[in-house]
């Protein structure tokens, strides 16, 4: 009987195509919104977010306004529970929310190679370490800006030569450009000799992050600049707080997309059943069981929803993997990445919505009065 369902869908191909494309667009948006939420979740949870601390200037938010002495690193290293400290100078082209934010992190190249989860996909570490204006660029930024090894990249007063492109197991890292600390400190307009934006603190396995954070702030309180130390995840969530609210709201948009697919497929299936109510009566007169009639309608709605939903999901995954999209603010970025979980949930939701949207018309088709339906012209 599946042939009957397929032929019916083909016969009304304009309606089928419109419904499938509507479901595809809605599931595309759903997956996109989902990937933003996943990106935010990845940024604020996980071992990198929980087992490292960010020391920032107290009451400062944008990286351009936080100016900490570089030698704070020595004092921080003395605290029990600290494994390593990496002073970082941050430069961003835009402190406000942006879809094309460029963030430079200046740090010791050897420390970067040792502590960051980066894999060079082209170029060389040696060139990065030896050349003063060398930079390694995250894959997403390179995709967005069309950069490759050997290119000269200039933005604002900063001009770097690209020594390598890297990928990372932490997606937000792929939106960064790393240079040496000295290069960024002496870049025109920054005047940050001896100063850094933040210190990134790696903890020992048994250290309590909150205790160490509190000790760092206490110890540095007597210094030239007071600090505020937080877990990296909490720091990034706080930095992106405006975006977090927006992303929180956007998840309603995701639910709205599911609702849209539900009503779209339900409307199409109801119309289809009402148009063919006599056909269902004929099928039952021939001997098709009511439950089989119900299954025919459910198959129709589920196929519409699955084809549309899976198409939209796959297109979203393709766009997310090729586009290198990210949103950032104040030097922190959220990477939009495709994921198996997102693809699975998109397909599973399409399946569920297909079944749910088909239920009312399926019940109608299977419980009709055959005699009344046969009388319809």
């Amino acid at each position, binding site marked *: 009987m599946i042939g009957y369902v397929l032929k019916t869908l083909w016969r009304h191909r304009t309606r089928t195509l419109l419904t499938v494309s509507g479901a595809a667009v809605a599931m595309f948006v759903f997956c996109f919104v989902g990937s933003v939420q996943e990106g935010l979740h990845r940024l604020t949870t996980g071992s990198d977010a929980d087992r490292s601390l960010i020391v920032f200037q107290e009451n400062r938010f944008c990286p351009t306004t936080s100016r900490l002495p570089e030698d704070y690193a020595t004092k921080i290293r003395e605290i029990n529970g600290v494994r390593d400290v990496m002073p970082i100078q941050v430069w961003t082209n835009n402190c406000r929310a942006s879809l094309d934010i460029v963030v430079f992190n200046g740090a010791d190249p050897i420390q970067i190679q040792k502590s960051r989860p980066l894999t060079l996909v082209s170029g060389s570490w040696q060139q990065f370490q030896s050349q003063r204006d060398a930079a390694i660029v995250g894959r997403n930024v390179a995709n967005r800006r069309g950069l490759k090894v050997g290119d000269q990249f200039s933005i604002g007063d900063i001009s770097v030569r690209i020594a390598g492109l890297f990928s990372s197991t932490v997606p937000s890292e792929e939106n960064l450009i790393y240079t040496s600390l000295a290069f960024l400190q002496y870049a025109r307009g920054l005047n940050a000799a001896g100063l850094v934006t933040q210190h990134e603190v790696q903890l020992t396995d048994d250290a309590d992050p909150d205790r160490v954070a509190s000790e760092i702030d206490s110890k540095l309180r007597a210094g030239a600049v007071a600090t505020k130390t937080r877990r990296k995840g909490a720091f990034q969530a706080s930095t992106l707080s405006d975006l977090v609210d927006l992303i929180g709201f956007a998840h309603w948009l995701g639910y709205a997309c599911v609702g849209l697919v539900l009503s779209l497929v339900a409307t199409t299936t109801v119309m289809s059943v009402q148009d063919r109510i006599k056909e269902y009566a004929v099928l039952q007169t021939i001997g098709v069981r009511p*439950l089989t009639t119900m299954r025919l309608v459910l198959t129709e709605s589920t196929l519409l929803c699955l084809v549309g939903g899976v198409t939209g999901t796959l297109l979203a995954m393709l766009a997310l993997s090729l586009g290198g999209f990210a949103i950032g603010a104040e030097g922190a970025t959220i990477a939009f990445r495709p994921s198996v979980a997102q693809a699975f949930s998109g397909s599973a939701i399409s399946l569920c919505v297909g079944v749910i949207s088909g239920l009312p018309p399926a019940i109608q088709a299977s419980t009709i009065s055959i005699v009344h339906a046969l009388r319809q012209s």
Partner: protein
Amino acid sequence: MALVELRGVSKSFSKGEETITPLDNISMDIEEGEFISLMGPSGTGKSTLLNLVSGIDRPDAGTITVDGTDVTKLSRTQLADWRAANLGYIFQTHNLIPVLTAYENVELPTLLLKLSSAQRRQRVELALEAVGLSDRANHYPRQLSGGQEQRVGIARAIVAHPKVVVADEPTGSLDAETSDQVQILLQRLNRELNITMLMVTHDSNVAAIATKQLILDRGKFLARAEGAAR
């Protein structure tokens, strides 16, 4: 024992505040191989009687037994299974499934039976041959004439080898020439394949092809006449 037995069958409908009783305590027998035509004015319960025998409607009172099975006691699902195995229905307006070819339309009832694909194919080909439409097997309903559509409908009604075939005004939507062809076909199927038939018609000429003619008026049988074979 007759193949079809109706005992004390009544059926009423509510139409606004009015209650219409098209069938009032009707009893009748249809023997195996019999061809009965039902005539009578509009609204006298002919189609209602047909629907009750075919199990797509239920009586308010009485029993309807077909080959020993009281169809009034079957559930909706049991009735569907019973119809698939025991009943062929010829509609006035053909009611073919438009997205299926003539072959696929005829094949539909066989999909509901436990048959191998070879057995199904054989039955469909025989049914199409019986109605003279083997060469139209791959045509869609929109590519067939009204008479051809009705013949496909007849093939669909006989393909499952049902015990009873009911026909609701089978020539009602056809021109005179096509109507004659369909009448000859129905008569041939009854005689050659010994198919038991119950046919509703307004046309006395069509009714005459049956072996027995019944006239229904105000819920009662008025007269019986033995049909004359043409």
